[in-house]
């Protein structure tokens, strides 16, 4: 009976969809709007939205101030840097870089962390103590220094940055997933699946993992802001992405020595980082309160 009604109703009025819509209407407006305009739209549509090529500049137009300052023109709304590249375009492409770095790093770190966390919590015993020891060590490594050694040895590149971030990120996922797995594996439906003949892998992937997803979404959201801050700090130190990538941290580094003559070169990328991370933190807090109040202390 229930299936019949479900089929006759249009897809958007099912109870699940309705609930999702109700949730969505309560989303915090300011952070979501900020993120959409600062991160998502620029990142996805950079070639369409950006007025200029982020890597090409003309030396004739170097260090033009933003439009409202004396000498600025509407051709370059936020001015240009010392190679005459349009700042606005570079910031827009920078959103793409930040989003790409954090998405790849969190995805890879997350997969490693989730796999090891599931194994640690599910199997227990020696596997558990070995993995948890690794987690402890990885959480007590000094972040920036690890990145500096790696860069000193192999040189700065996208891959190096991702490797550093993955080493730093996976442990939190492993710890979170292990904790939840420990309690979930005692539940009845896991025992039933085992009786029905499900393999260990199948139990972990199909029965335990779906119950951890909420917490993972919260952790991942809170980590995007952290990763963006970290990546920009590494790039600023010359240990992150190589030039001439339009990374926000690199742009701030370029503007450091120009602080007396051209303040805008470092000011605008910094504002972009600050507003993006602020919005991500607000959204993460909101998600935590609504999806997973257990995580208050993460």
């Amino acid at each position: 009976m229930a299936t019949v009604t479900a089929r006759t109703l249009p897809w958007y009025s099912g109870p699940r969809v309705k609930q999702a819509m109700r949730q969505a209407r309560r989303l915090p407006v300011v952070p979501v709007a900020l993120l959409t305009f600062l991160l998502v739209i620029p990142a996805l549509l950079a070639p369409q939205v950006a007025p200029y090529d982020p890597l090409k500049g003309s030396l004739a137009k170097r260090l033009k101030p933003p439009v409202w300052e004396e000498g600025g023109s509407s051709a370059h709304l936020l001015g240009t840097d010392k190679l005459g590249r349009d700042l606005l375009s570079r910031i827009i492409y920078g959103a793409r870089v930040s989003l790409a770095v954090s998405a790849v790093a969190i995805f890879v770190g997350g997969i490693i962390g989730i796999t090891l966390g599931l194994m640690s919590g599910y199997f227990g015993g020696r596997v558990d103590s070995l993995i948890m020891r690794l987690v402890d060590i990885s959480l007590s490594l000094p972040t920036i220094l690890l990145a500096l050694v790696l860069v000193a040895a192999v040189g700065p590149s996208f891959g190096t940055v991702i490797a550093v971030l993955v080493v730093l990120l996976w442990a939190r996922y492993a710890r979170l997933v292990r904790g939840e797995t420990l309690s979930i594996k005692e539940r009845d439906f896991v025992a039933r699946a085992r009786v029905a003949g499900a393999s260990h892998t199948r139990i972990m992937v199909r029965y335990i993992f779906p119950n951890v997803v909420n917490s993972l979404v919260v952790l991942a959201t809170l980590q995007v802001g952290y990763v963006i801050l970290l990546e920009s700090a590494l790039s600023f130190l010359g240990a992150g992405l190589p030039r001439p990538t339009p990374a926000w941290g690199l742009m701030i580094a370029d503007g450091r020595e120009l602080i007396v003559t051209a303040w805008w070169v470092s000011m605008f990328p910094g504002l972009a980082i600050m507003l993006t991370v602020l919005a991500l933190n607000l959204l993460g807090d909101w998600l935590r309160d609504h999806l997973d109040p257990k995580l208050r202390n993460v």
Partner: protein
Amino acid sequence: MQRYIAKRALQSLLTIWVMSLVVFALARVTGNPLDVMLPLEAGPEDFERVSKHWGFDKPLTTQYVIFLSKAVQGDFGTSWKWPGHSAMGLVGQRLPATLQLAGFALLISIVIALPIGVLSAVMKDTPWDTAAKIIALLGQSLPGFWLGIVLMWIFAVHLGWFPTSGKGGLQYMVLPAITLGWFQVAAIMRLVRSSMLDVLDSEFVKLTRIKGLAEWKVIWKHCLRNAAIAPVTFFAIIAGVLMTGSVVTESVFSWPGTGLLVVDAVRARDFQVVQAVVIVFAGIFILTNLMVDILYAYLDPRIRLR
């Protein structure tokens, strides 16, 4: 308790060892370790000297024994960029400046955070409290190096109150210390606020009020003294964070400490200096973590049993 300390100390040693293993492996994983240890511009006599120092002609296991025995003695080779200096000697020379800056930053962050934290607890749910929350949120979202540049722009370039960079008298230290301490302000403030809220609720505070004690004395003497326990244990963690945070701050303000040293060494591909700084910093970082854990276990017996 002794068992717990022994266990944690062993774990810390293990972590430092892992860090040294990372350093050892990274120098050798890319093929010829000499390419990592020295920049391309280095002369043949440099290559020969470094190769002999670390025994690169010997098998990997022997190299590791050489590395470990030298590392334990604090010998990380000689610098290429700063000729005539040993890597460890350079670290020792620069460390006081970093400690000075970190200490001053800690002081500033306490001076700023403590009153704000107390007041926002006392005036909970007022605009003042909201303002404090906004400061805390900004503390987590501002990139430290950018804050440094903004402060430099406003207070050094425009107002001319402080010098832009370098080291000298106290006025050189103000902007870097605020930059370094900013992130901690938010953390300390939130801790003080939450533990003050707990204390304000307790029976003995009611008693002091019934006694007719002046309100300022109730808050600043009786409550604060009891609320300070949690934040005090937090200070050791902060010390560790300040040490690593100094890498970024020092390179913004050209503060001649170990942080600037390691960044300069990375740029010049002076790997022997890099590895010395990294091991020393990792040691300090891990040691402060260990001290915090022991302090916590001492204050809260439940932790020892875990």
